[in-house]
């Protein structure tokens, strides 16, 4: 099985726009950046601007209850909420998920809140660092919690990488389903923000605004829903210049697959220096609509490509037209993806 045989039966999202895919969709369609606020730094006052867009507090109906979630951090709570929404959207009862469900998780930074807290304790006095926190720092803790919450005891795995490594996860989901490792696959990409990651982004560019959230897609070989028609890439690069030179090739290969009216969901941040190569690459044809979730929601790192895919799925459902998703990445490889009705 190839990723092109996969259909997206359900989607869910948590983002700076709220705790649903619909809230995100609405915000991105409005096209205006959501309000940001200075990201607080514990202990002292930062000597340069650093803005963030955190996810709002969870509405009561989105607070999942489970023993494993008592200590879990934001990334797990976002993931569980997005997963439940995706299952419901696919017509499943979240209380009894489908048999043979696999879970693939994608992240870049991972459990930064507990990692920072635990390491702070280690630096202060390792003999008194909390043994309860350490397991929550492990990259695959959120996937484990989601699996436990849903009762999924089959294939559960976590991938690390740039946000666009979700394309490798899509491909992996396809071969899991094709080879019987899983019957259906919940693909989740999530990230939580802390002051360290918000500052880290400002080293890339002072105007980058850190955000957080989760996107979830319920993937299946059948059952209806938008299809992953094509994944282009990886087009690997070893420098920013090489990346910029590759993007026209990525766009050309992708556009050869798309006829007629279509929507583009790009990676645009609103910062010209970071965006110009991508915008130029995709300008070869007119688009019915161009959506830029990162510009509206902020840079949610590992979650950002999933949020693009969730948005793309909703756009296909709404327009019944192809959607092209541009995933140029920033430090390893570029991808794109075509979704069709």
């Amino acid at each position, binding site marked *: 099985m190839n990723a092109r045989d996969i259909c997206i039966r359900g989607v869910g999202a948590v983002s700076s726009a709220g705790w649903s895919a619909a809230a995100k969709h609405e915000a991105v369609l409005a096209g205006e950046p959501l309000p940001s606020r200075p990201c607080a730094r514990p202990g002292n006052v930062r000597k340069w601007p650093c803005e963030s867009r955190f996810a709002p507090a969870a509405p009561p109906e989105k607070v999942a209850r489970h023993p494993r979630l008592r200590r879990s951090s934001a990334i797990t709570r976002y993931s569980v909420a997005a997963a439940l929404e995706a299952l419901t959207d696919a017509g499943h009862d979240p209380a009894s998920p489908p048999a043979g469900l696999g879970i693939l998780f994608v992240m870049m930074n991972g459990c930064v809140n507990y990692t920072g807290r635990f390491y702070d304790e280690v630096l202060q006095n390792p003999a008194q660092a909390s*043994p309860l926190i350490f397991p929550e720092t*492990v990259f695959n*803790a959120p996937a484990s919690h989601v699996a436990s919450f849903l009762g999924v005891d089959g294939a559960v795995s976590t991938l690390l*990488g740039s946000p666009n490594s979700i394309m*490798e996860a899509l491909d992996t989901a396809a071969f899991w389903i094709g080879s019987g490792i899983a019957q259906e696959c919940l693909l989740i990409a999530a990230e939580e923000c802390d002051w360290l990651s918000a500052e*880290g982004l400002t080293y890339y560019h002072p105007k980058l605004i850190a955000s957080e959230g989760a996107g979830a897609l319920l993937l299946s070989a059948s059952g209806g829903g938008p299809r992953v028609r094509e994944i282009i890439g990886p*087009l*690997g690069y070893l420098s920013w210049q090489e990346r910029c030179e590759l993007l026209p090739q990525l766009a050309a290969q992708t556009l050869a697959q798309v006829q007629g009216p279509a929507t583009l969901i790009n990676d645009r941040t609103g910062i010209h220096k970071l965006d110009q190569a991508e915008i130029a690459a995709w300008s070869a044809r007119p688009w019915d609509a161009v959506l830029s979730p990162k510009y509206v929601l902020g840079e949610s790192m590992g979650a950002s490509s999933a949020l693009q895919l969730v948005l793309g799925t909703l756009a296909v459902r709404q327009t019944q037209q192809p959607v092209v998703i541009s995933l140029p990445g920033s430090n390893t*490889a570029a991808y794109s993806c075509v979704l069709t009705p």
Partner: protein
Amino acid sequence: MPPPSSQRIAITGAGIVSPLGSGWQANEQSLAADRTAFKPVELFDTRELIAKTAGVVDLPAENLFRRCPPHKQSFIDRGTHMLLMAIREALAQAGRSGLEGIDAIVVGTSAGAMPLGESYFEHAHHDAARVPAQLSRAEHYQPQRQMSSIAAEFDWRGPIIIVSNACASGANAIGWAAEMIRSGRAKRVLAGGYDALARLVFAGFDTLHALAPSGIPRPFDAQRDGLALGEGAAVMLLEAEEVRQSAALGEVSGYSTATDLHHLTQPDPAGKAAIRTMTTACAQAGVSPAQIGYINSHGTGTPFNDVAEAAAIAAWAGEAVAGIPVSSTKSSMGHLLGGAGAVEAVICLMALQGQWLPASLNVREVDPAVRFDLVRQFRRASLDYALTNSFGFGGTNATLVLQRRSA
């Protein structure tokens, strides 16, 4: 249960870096000598910790990253160095100088480049102003950025998949690679795992009281009191039999993964997920438990793990259990976390090639849960199949079955 797979997956190259040594030969000699490799940790401060020793790799002094600019060298993590060494050995063994013709790289890691993240954290905490080199620290903390340093060495621009399933990462990476070939998605994949010692991780296991206070792990000993950490890397080049271009050292004939939902860090006492992975991996390989000539156990030396794994092996093997040789090579080199599954898979390959069994060292009195043939010193043997178990935080279980191949 899956039917036996007809797709043969050859292992044509393997590389290993462990506290026992760098390279196949050094590790084979150390295992044959029942040598242990624990020494005081000097990479970070352990004075306030219970454990103070680990299996530490001695990295060579020369510059391994020939294409990396000098000002970036210090941002390449120890684990990445080990991984590059293992990759170079695997490629050399397969008669290759580069990565041409390889469809993908799949690597497992638990901590990634954690020391870079630690350094970023410490600099950020220390100074509220913008700190030089923080961009490089933030970038190189990311495992994919570390992997791109390796990619640059080989001018590689293909897919790199980084699996992070805690201590089962390396085994899952090899298993995924095998499944990619079995499903026809790829013909030739480089797969393995790595992890280097990191202060946060070391302190984490210490706070859990999971580390042996004496620094000596005693897997399957009745009085075992914890594991020792280690570091290392291992890589295998897997090729579909029909495209194999060099002699096969062995085959990956079975793989399975499952999730233990019992607890975030503790295994189900009956080892139910392990029973499933061993059963399914053997079904895919088309072998019965009695045909398994060696099990390299997860065998951490913690009270919970070993008794659960022993119970799982007994339940899975049934009447055959007493005849199955089992050892934990973590007793000699420590627990290599994300590298463990890959290193232990390569040790299984070495055992199949050399027809020997590595030992579980440091055992004084065998735990009563042990019903298998615990290998307590290196011995010669005749075996065609070896099985290796890896279990990780989060409940990820993975089993690989490797098969002997004559050259």
